[in-house]
């Protein structure tokens, strides 16, 4: 097991771009090597060690590498981007694009996450023990596919455009979501235990289950009886009719 502990040397408003900070890039490296990794901060590049305190215990493979952030990293973007294995634990709030393009491994956030959590991820797991902002599990601007695989669990609330353009994988939100969850999705499964507004607009494929209140159901779904999932009976809606969709929207 290799454990890399990172904490910010000083609070920052200008975000640090930590797209290099993942187990794939840290495994087997010494503290000195990790400190030398270059990251963007504003319009300049700096060695990681200039911005973070770095402690390394052990040396191991990617699968057995764990990165732990202590304290607030709410202005550190792209933590865990493209990671394929290993684990990241964040004990504080985290900035945008955490777990972007993630392929495997696990990210646990004990705090809130800013927008684009788990964007375009294809595998692995993200567990958020706080609230998320906009565009969880969505795609980059203009892309037809967002999240394609893996699982995101949000134990708090999240805001608009959850799972936008989702093509696969699973998202579970224990709290409420904002506007237009699962918009333009084409596969995958979204479960929302709290409330949602205008769900599943232009869904082509996929399943959306909402256990709380739904406001402003879009006038593009056909109601087709009921369906039972895990002992609970839901009203079943099929659509979006305007995209010839075969998506299933289950509402309590």
């Amino acid at each position, binding site marked *: 097991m290799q454990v890399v502990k990172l904490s910010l040397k000083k609070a920052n408003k200008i975000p640090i771009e930590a797209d290099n900070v993942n187990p794939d890039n840290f495994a087997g490296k010494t503290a000195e090597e990790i400190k030398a990794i270059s990251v963007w901060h504003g319009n300049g590049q700096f060695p990681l060690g200039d911005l973070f305190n770095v402690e390394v215990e052990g040396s191991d493979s990617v699968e057995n590498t764990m990165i732990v952030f202590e304290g607030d990293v709410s202005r550190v973007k792209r933590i865990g981007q493209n990671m394929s294995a290993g684990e990241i634990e964040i004990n504080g709030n985290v900035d945008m694009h955490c777990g972007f393009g993630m392929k495997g491994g696990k990210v646990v956030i004990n705090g809130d996450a800013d*927008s684009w959590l788990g964007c375009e991820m294809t595998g692995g797991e993200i567990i958020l023990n706080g609230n998320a*902002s*906009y565009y969880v599990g969505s795609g980059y601007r203009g892309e037809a596919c967002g999240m394609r695989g893996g699982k995101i669990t949000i134990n708090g609330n999240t*805001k*608009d*455009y959850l799972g936008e353009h989702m093509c696969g994988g699973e998202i579970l939100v224990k709290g409420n979501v904002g506007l237009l969850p699962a918009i333009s999705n084409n596969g995958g499964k979204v479960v929302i235990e709290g409330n949602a507004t205008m769900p599943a607009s232009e869904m082509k494929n996929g399943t959306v289950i909402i256990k709380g209140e739904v406001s402003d159901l879009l006038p593009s779904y056909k109601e087709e009886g009921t369906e039972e999932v895990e002992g609970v009976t839901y009203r079943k809606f099929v659509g979006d009719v305007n995209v010839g969709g075969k998506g299933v929207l289950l509402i309590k």
Partner: protein
Amino acid sequence: MKIKANLISGRTANQGAHLEAKTHKGYFDACAYCELNSADLEKLGASEGDSLKVTTEFGEVVVFAKANGGNPDGLAFIPMGPWANAVLSPDTHGCGMPGFKGVPAEIEVTDEKPLDMKSLMKKYLED
């Protein structure tokens, strides 16, 4: 008496005509007001020209009352400009655009007078 209203902002011809004269009183007159329909003004006990305090989650601002029969009940309009922006939503909703329309507001009559542009901006420097 307070009423709850849904606040929107937008362009007007007069605001547009003063875009390049924002230090003038004409700009103040063109932007430092809130339109409600006459039923809502009546509820407030306000007449055109009275001062109204508009309060939202994001701040408060004092503007003049103005009647507009085209507004449905509970819809308040302040022309785009620094007065409206004192109370509109800074949340960009993940897509860059602040909340310039559809901000829940409380409106009441006040004795305070609207601040002129420079005084309004000065408050930001003092913050």
